């Protein structure tokens, strides 16, 4: 068993609309995987199917080697789940909530819980209803980490949090990642945060998975290319289809090479634009995501 999460041909429809459409995805053990996508892409629905909150209409999910439909107390004792939508028992104090969670997990680590409380600077004596949104998310995270889960699923964990809390949240997870042998699955549309956290990325839109690879590969593969053309150079009618967002600015062209290879791509560019001066700059995840999303929608529209 190599994958903590294995999704096979997963489909979920609400009415006639497929919110998730034949999704295939694998997340290997030990990876921090981020599922990115705009609002309505189907990320939360996918996460809810992972957690057996929703049942798929088609397809199957294996999570830590168990079919998601059969997730029970034994499996949930190894999974941590934090979602922006989770309802906490507001009438409890943070301490009471943690004590309540403690009774459910045989592997609950009191010392670790205390260190998490310190790490996140949690006001555990306060009633949950008096806590800020950020505090509630940190409390949920604490309650989902204190038993050393094998898999941590975060559904839009950053939404509604201010930049400072986001920073603390990510720093906390990263600090723990050094010590914990876990897999993290994050669904989010906050790309900057994900970029700092994840080592594997999936991009989803309209229920379909567009990309699924490691962040390093993705960032290596996508390069911004700028070519200063020489005076006699012409732009051929047929350009490689991996070149996205092609633009001409006077005697310069810019595009994104989505299949950039260090050892071959410069020669190909040189061959197409002989005599041109090539300048290659890496793209960040936000830029890659926007290019993907834009290109995907254009392709869909032209297909329609």
């Amino acid at each position, binding site marked *: 068993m190599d994958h903590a999460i294995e999704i096979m041909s997963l489909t979920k429809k609400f009415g006639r609309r497929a919110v998730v459409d034949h999704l295939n995805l694998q997340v290997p053990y030990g990876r921090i995987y981020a599922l990115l996508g705009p609002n309505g892409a189907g990320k939360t629905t996918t996460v809810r199917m992972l957690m057996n909150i929703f049942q798929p209409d088609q397809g199957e999910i294996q999570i830590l080697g168990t079919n998601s439909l059969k997730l*029970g107390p034994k499996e949930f004792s190894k999974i941590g789940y934090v979602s922006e939508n989770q*309802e906490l028992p507001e009438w409890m104090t943070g301490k009471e909530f943690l004590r309540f969670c403690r009774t459910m997990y045989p592997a609950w680590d009191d010392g670790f819980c205390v260190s998490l409380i310190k790490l996140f600077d949690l006001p555990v004596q306060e009633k949950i209803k008096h806590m800020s949104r950020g505090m509630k998310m940190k409390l*949920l995270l604490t309650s989902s980490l204190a038993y050393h889960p094998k898999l941590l699923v975060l559904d839009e964990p950053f939404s509604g949090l201010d930049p400072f809390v986001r920073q603390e949240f990510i720093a906390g997870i990263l600090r723990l990642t050094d010590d914990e042998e876990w897999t993290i699955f994050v669904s989010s549309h906050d790309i900057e945060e994900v970029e700092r956290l994840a080592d594997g990325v999936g991009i989803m839109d309209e229920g379909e998975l567009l990309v699924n690879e490691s962040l390093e590969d993705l960032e290596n593969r996508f390069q911004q290319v700028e070519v200063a053309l020489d005076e006699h150079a012409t732009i051929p009618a047929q350009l490689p289809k991996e070149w996205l967002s092609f633009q001409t600015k006077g005697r310069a062209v810019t595009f994104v090479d989505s299949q950039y290879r260090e050892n071959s791509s410069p020669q190909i560019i040189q061959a197409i634009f002989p005599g041109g001066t090539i300048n290659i700059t890496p793209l960040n995840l936000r830029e890659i995501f926007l290019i993907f999303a834009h290109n995907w929608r254009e392709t869909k529209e032209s297909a329609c």
Partner: protein
Amino acid sequence: MLKAFVIIFIKDLRKIRWLLAILAGALGAHLAMSIFAGPWIAFHPMQAKNFERLYEWQSYLLSFVELMIIISVVQADSLHRNTAVLLTRPVSWSAVCTAKMFMAFLAAIVFPLTAEWFIWHYYSVPFPKTMLALIDSGVFQVFFAVNVFFMAAITPDIKKCFLILIIEPVLLNWGSYFYRDFFCFSPEGMEESVVFYQAILFSIFNIILIYYHYRHRRIPKTIGCFILNCLCALFLSFVLAKNFNIFAFKKESSASFGQIAKAIDVKPEFIRHSISGDQISFDIFLNQNADLLRQGFRIATQFKTMKGTSLLNSISLASPKAQFYSRINYQIYTPYPMNSYVSSLSRLIGNPRIMNLPPANEPLDYNLFPDNGSDAYFNKLVFEGNAAILNAKINLRIDQLTVGAACDLSHPGHASCSTPYYRVLRTIRQHDAAFVIFSRITPSARLDLTRSTFLWFNYNNAYFIKNTSSQEALSGTPVNTNGIFYLPLGLTNPLSKNKSPLYLALMAEKFQFPENPMTSLNKDWFQHAQFIAIEPKTMGYLNLPIEYRFKPGCPEETPEKFKFYDEEKCFIYPIANQNNF
């Protein structure tokens, strides 16, 4: 599973601790009102209605708190919005469901029924009847709790849950009117059985459905199953009631009843009628057999049907062959010779000297003995001619007067009865009279299949205080003849209204001292006295068909005893030889 159950149960217990405190307060108020009401209300009959209303409101408060507890417990981990924190925690949903059901069971069934049991015990309800009453009350309380639990489980918040719980009884009422038109409840007890089975089946089906819902959380499917469950419960309850009518009236006939029945030979002595507008009122007088009465037997009527048929032409203003309908209102009286009655009572309590009887020259002839059953009945009588026939079928109940309770008054102010259904709450002795405040419990028809005591209060009961050593007795008269205060014991909830298993009557009886008593009716006299209640016990039933013919006009030779209605309005009169019914 057990661990998860305990975790959830304790969590919910902490969440609803304030509601539980309110429940404890409401139950305390319920207990106090039920137990301490008697002595107070017996002497404040004017406040009885207010107290009854307060008691009813208090019952609804209790139901409301129970309802709030169930909703709070269920919606603490709502299944509706897929956002409950427990959804992704290592607890089995069957454990969550069981913990919540157990909490609902405690709050809505165990605690209130324990309080209720205490009240029944205080009023000396016998153990077997207590058990039956617990089952009876429990079934309707479970029905209520399951219903609220289910609605709380499928609604996202308390507001929507309340909205559904308000709409639901309206729909149920509407539904019950609908099916009443289609189904026949003819055998007596059938309707009670159907309702009882419905409550049981509904509860069983929906407990299973709640478990299903907790496992799968599919609301449309759950609602579909709920509708199916209701229809199945409705249909199966009829099938069950048809085959096992558990509340069917059970005739208990003793060996001696056959002989008594032969001796009874009841004949109505006369029927009188009066007319007002389109309403014709009949009063039917069935004479008690004096010999039987002396032996302690009396007749009463219970189940009645009445039908009018008509003959030719018109009455009064109506044209030939015209029809008009009259409403019939009738009352049946069973007059009895007072002296026979008194001698039978005296014999029952051991022939003591009854000190406060009226003087012997006072007329003791006939006293109207109004019937215990329904006192009015409406039907339509079709007049199509110049004469009409009234057919009535009267079921006669033969009662035997028995000593229902004999309670020692040796502890003035408070004495327990040896006989179940009665309890003396207080005795007050004044210079010219003594008062006994007591309670009398009567089970509902569901708990008393022979219908022998199904009378909330019985005007025909007689009460005595008898000194066992001096063989002297005082007969009682009600302190407040029209203000007997009764409470429906058992838990009342909006879905089981009027389904109380036991009725509590709180009464005060006055025992007037004679003007010149031969012995002093002092404290010592009461120390050796007993409070005795004489109750009619049902022996069996007889059928009495009667036919009454009458025609338009006013009789010229109306006998004196018929002249009690306004003769000007009289335009129908009995045809001669009416006494051969």
